[in-house]
């Protein structure tokens, strides 16, 4: 079944508008309207980059292209131009859809046919009965070396979680999300709204949390999702008071107890749920008991065929919602030898519950942005007075974690007295921070630097990394 067929199946229900800032579109009207016009057929069988300024255009393009294009690559907002050649190469992009006249592919990418879509659907004859073929959906997620990773899904894998949580659609919900619909978390909500014929109110790209929540409250939003970092920002905006949701969802980062408690207090009549989901693994499970971590009883196989394995100390997930593969030459397999997706989220059991205790491989997540400790350490170690350094996460109530560093200094001949040594250490720390600010993105710069006498090194000669 294509996405359009899923929407059309709901035609018996009043086809709700997709609500967007000043641009409501009734999905039912797409039966004889299009943003691609009569040009859709030119994209049949091709690998199409959907690179739009507006989330709404991207969503409409997905509806039209599913079952027509061989592959759709959903370009995330703000993808750096320098990464485009890699994405185009890895996904073998040969067609481009944009909504801005200036949004054509840069000429250095070679000849890629470009189609400028209408911002809103225009009435036209659209033949949606043509033979459909399965379209591969490609999502971008931040990678380890700076460039994005291309994660391949199908419509079936992207919507697999709907079988797990069907009751969310009871009572005509109005969905909303802080996520952009071009990212996995937002796409889940978009597809859910399309599949179940509910209204959707996505956050605007340049909207403050206060403005967005005001708009959501006015629209009577009942179900709303975002990352813990989105929610912390929302709570600090003071604008949550207007909203009366039934269901509040956190995903994309580890939800700590403080944010769960704060949301419970802010929305006393709502179910506050945190879900474990990622672009690669899909939606694994949802926890609604108001506590961080998850009950030990969740490990095992669910009725919907989701296998949760904790036997190796990390969360491993095998499910119909798993992505199929990473695209690109030399890309690593997305699943391990036993067919599980393992993103290295380390677990620790306390009582009858599993708790997340950081990432193996040391990746630090600062408000949804990844930091590789080694990258920061390399910059710190470039200071002539630094012998070695260890960058690690530190729990933080605003961004989940922040980056901190411990440094061992070169034995200083300058350190003649304790007082001198302290002044020397302070000066070096200031200089290190200055260098970090010049050479690293703001979220990668350590919040704190501490000078230590030594760092633990393992028998294999590697720095011992223990996540905070």
């Amino acid at each position, binding site marked *: 079944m294509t996405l359009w067929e899923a929407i059309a199946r709901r035609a018996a229900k009043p086809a709700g508008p997709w609500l967007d800032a000043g641009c409501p579109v009734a999905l039912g009207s797409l039966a004889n309207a299009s943003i691609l016009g009569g040009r859709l057929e030119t994209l049949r069988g091709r690998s199409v980059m959907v690179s739009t300024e507006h989330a709404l255009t991207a969503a409409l393009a997905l509806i039209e292209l599913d079952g027509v294009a061989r592959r759709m690559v959903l370009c995330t907002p703000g993808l750096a131009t320098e990464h485009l050649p890699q994405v185009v190469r890895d996904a073998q992009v040969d067609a481009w859809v944009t909504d801005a006249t200036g949004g054509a592919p840069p000429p250095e990418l070679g000849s890629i046919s470009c189609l400028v879509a209408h911002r809103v659907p225009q009435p036209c004859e659209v033949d949606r009965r043509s033979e459909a073929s399965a379209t591969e959906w490609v999502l971008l997620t931040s990678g380890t070396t700076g460039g994005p990773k291309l994660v391949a899904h199908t419509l079936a894998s992207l919507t697999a979680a709907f079988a797990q949580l069907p009751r969310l659609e009871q009572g005509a919900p109005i969905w909303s999300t802080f996520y952009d619909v071009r990212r996995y978390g937002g796409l889940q909500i978009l597809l859910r709204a399309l599949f179940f014929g509910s209204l959707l109110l996505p956050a605007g790209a340049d909207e403050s949390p206060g403005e967005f929540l005001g708009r959501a409250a006015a629209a009577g939003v009942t179900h709303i999702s975002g990352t813990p970092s989105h929610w912390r920002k929302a709570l*600090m905006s003071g604008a949550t008071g207007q909203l009366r949701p039934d269901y509040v969802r956190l995903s994309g980062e580890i939800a700590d107890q403080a944010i769960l408690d*704060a949301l419970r*207090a802010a929305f006393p009549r709502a179910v506050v749920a945190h879900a474990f989901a990622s672009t690669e693994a899909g939606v694994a499970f949802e926890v609604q008991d108001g506590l961080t971590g998850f009950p030990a009883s969740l490990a095992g196989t669910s009725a919907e065929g989701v296998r949760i394995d904790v036997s190796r100390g990390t969360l491993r997930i095998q499910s119909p919602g798993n992505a199929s593969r990473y695209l690109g030459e030399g890309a690593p397999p997305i699943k391990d030898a036993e067919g599980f997706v393992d993103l290295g989220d380390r677990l620790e059991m306390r009582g009858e519950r599993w708790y997340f205790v950081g990432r193996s491989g040391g990746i630090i997540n*600062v*408000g949804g942005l990844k930091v590789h400790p080694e990258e920061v350490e390399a910059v710190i170690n470039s200071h002539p007075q630094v012998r070695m350094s260890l960058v690690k996460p530190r729990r*933080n*109530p605003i961004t989940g974690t922040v980056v901190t560093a411990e440094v061992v200094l070169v034995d200083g001949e300058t350190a003649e007295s304790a007082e001198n040594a302290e002044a020397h250490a302070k000066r070096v720390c200031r200089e290190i921070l200055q260098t970090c600010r010049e050479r690293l993105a703001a979220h990668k710069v350590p*919040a*704190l630097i501490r000078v230590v006498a030594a760092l633990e090194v393992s028998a294999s000669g590697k720095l011992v990394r223990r996540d905070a």
Partner: protein
Amino acid sequence: MTVRSTVTSMFEEVAREQQRRLAPLTDTLRLVESGLDSLSFALIVARLEEALGYDPFDTAASFPVTFGDFVGLYEKYPR
């Protein structure tokens, strides 16, 4: 140094560092209008924990909305 002055100088230090234009710090100033972003607040909280030895967000019942709320969170924390 009082808790208030420690908090105030941390706001100023981080704003300088992050090259953000800090609004005058009055108790009624809404944090969203302070000129600081999430990362700046994260740095402020991390460094205040280092300076004062506690993180009141651990047990806070609600998130601060104004600068006054923010200072109050640190002043009222049982030490």
